[in-house]
């Protein structure tokens, strides 16, 4: 427990907590818009970008690597959109296709890069499963600034995001610039994914968007409350996951965080009132008894 007082741990936990917070907030919109799979595509497709950025520049600063991540992540989304628009493939097939190609290419590049001596120092492999302990002070700074920006924008465009997520056609009818709102919301989600890659990793980052939001939906019928709850669940997952990964040897942060987040989601799905599975079963058996 002494680790809780450790300054390095506190800083890292602050970063993971913040990441959990923005993942929860944006995940709420991603889940309600049924676009959470897009996050899966972006995060997996970010891997080749990270490695390419390093190979091309030889720099291992996080900002540079994340820019590379954003570039290939967005490129993948662009390809998916093109395929859906110009072929008979549906969104899920296009996503699976592009995502596996990009991720496979990323692994290939990573294997190649690992042979370069400076690459292991750059710690590129941390981007696969995430390693919060590798976060530097300045990484946390970046994370905090970006998170602050994201939260401010969500606050400012709250009603636009809300009506657009509920009924996009209606939003357009009442004069909301829906194309711009859609682009802004997607950019925020992509940004959250990209800044989370170091901590959670490309493989599991999308769970960080989905799980807290799914859990939160079980407990409330109001968007505001759902967003706050998702943020809270995100923070808990981030901090507890980081704690687990710091105390257990060779435990990457991503899986630790995601196990916590999905546990919260699972418990919520089971026991929440009104929407919970157990509640539903109980109600059904009661009805059946009364029927007989």
């Amino acid at each position, binding site marked *: 427990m002494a680790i809780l007082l450790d300054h390095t741990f506190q800083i890292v936990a602050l970063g993971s907590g913040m990441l959990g917070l923005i993942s929860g907030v944006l995940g709420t919109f991603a889940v309600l818009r049924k676009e959470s799979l897009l996050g899966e595509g972006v995060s997996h497709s970010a891997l080749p970008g990270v490695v390419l950025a390093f190979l091309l520049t030889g720099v291992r600063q996080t900002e540079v690597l994340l820019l590379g991540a954003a570039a290939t992540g967005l490129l993948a989304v662009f390809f998916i959109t093109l395929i859906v628009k110009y072929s008979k493939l549906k969104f899920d097939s296009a996503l699976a296709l592009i995502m596996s190609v990009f991720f496979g290419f990323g692994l290939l590049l990573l294997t190649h890069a690992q042979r370069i001596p400076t690459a292991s120092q750059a710690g590129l492999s941390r981007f696969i499963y995430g390693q919060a302990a590798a976060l530097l002070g300045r990484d946390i700074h970046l994370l905090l600034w970006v998170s602050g920006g994201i939260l401010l924008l969500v606050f400012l465009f709250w009603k636009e995001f809300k009506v657009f997520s*509920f009924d996009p*056609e*209606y939003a*357009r009818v*009442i004069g909301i610039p829906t194309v711009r709102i859609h682009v802004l919301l997607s950019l925020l989600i992509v940004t959250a994914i990209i800044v989370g890659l170091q901590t959670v990793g490309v493989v599991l980052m999308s769970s960080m968007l989905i799980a807290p939001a799914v859990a939160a939906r079980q407990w409330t019928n*109001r*968007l505001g409350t759902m967003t706050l709850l998702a943020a809270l669940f995100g923070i808990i997952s981030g901090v507890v996951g980081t704690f687990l990964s710091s105390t257990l040897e060779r435990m990457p942060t991503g899986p630790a965080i995601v196990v916590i987040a999905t546990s919260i989601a699972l418990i919520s799905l089971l026991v929440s009132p009104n929407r919970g599975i157990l509640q539903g079963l109980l109600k059904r058996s009661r009805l059946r008894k009364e029927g007989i």
Partner: protein
Amino acid sequence: MNAIEIKDLTVAYDSKPVLWDIELKIPQSKLAAIIGPNGAGKTTLVKSLLGLVKPVMGQVEIMGNQQKIAYVPQTASVDWDFPTTALDVVMMGRYGHLGFFKRPGKKEKALAGKCLEKVGMEAFASRQISQLSGGQQQRVFLARALAQDAEIYLLDEPLKGVDAKTEAVIMELLKGLQRDGKTVIVVHHDLRTVEANFDWVVLLNTQLVGNGPVKDIFTKENLEQTYQMDRKVG
């Protein structure tokens, strides 16, 4: 004065025409029904008026501007499991008026409450929307349109699958809007109630079959033509 004016409108999905060469004027302060068989392009016509679909050809002119239109979509078109309450949905009708960065406050809440009252749904204000019946959902949508305080009201099948009580409430409200000088355009499916409820009718089957006062246009011959017309065009 015409509330809407459509010139030479053609709309197609995947090169299959849904609306073909439509010329249409609806005067102000009419309560108009759009009638036609399934797939006749009724919803597409409404969406063209709203600027939601891009025409292949032609123009749509709305008296005033686009902001003056209130819209009641088909109830099946939204995610009813969305975490929001009836009152909340009605408040969305004010979002367009608020402008960026402004949040709905007490004034909007009061107005939304009043609109819920008008459709007889004030008791359900804090209900999650999936816990409402089909007719109640329809009334909430109507209240949201009322909150928009528009000049033209476009409703897509507002009476589909609702009970008699809801139908009466909705029709009474629409007639009230007309009395206030608003133009109300309704996609309608029940031929039996057209004469009792509407004073203007648009007969549509990809092409325009008839457009005018109910007593002139809602004739047996016209209806036969609307429902039996060979829909192949070109």
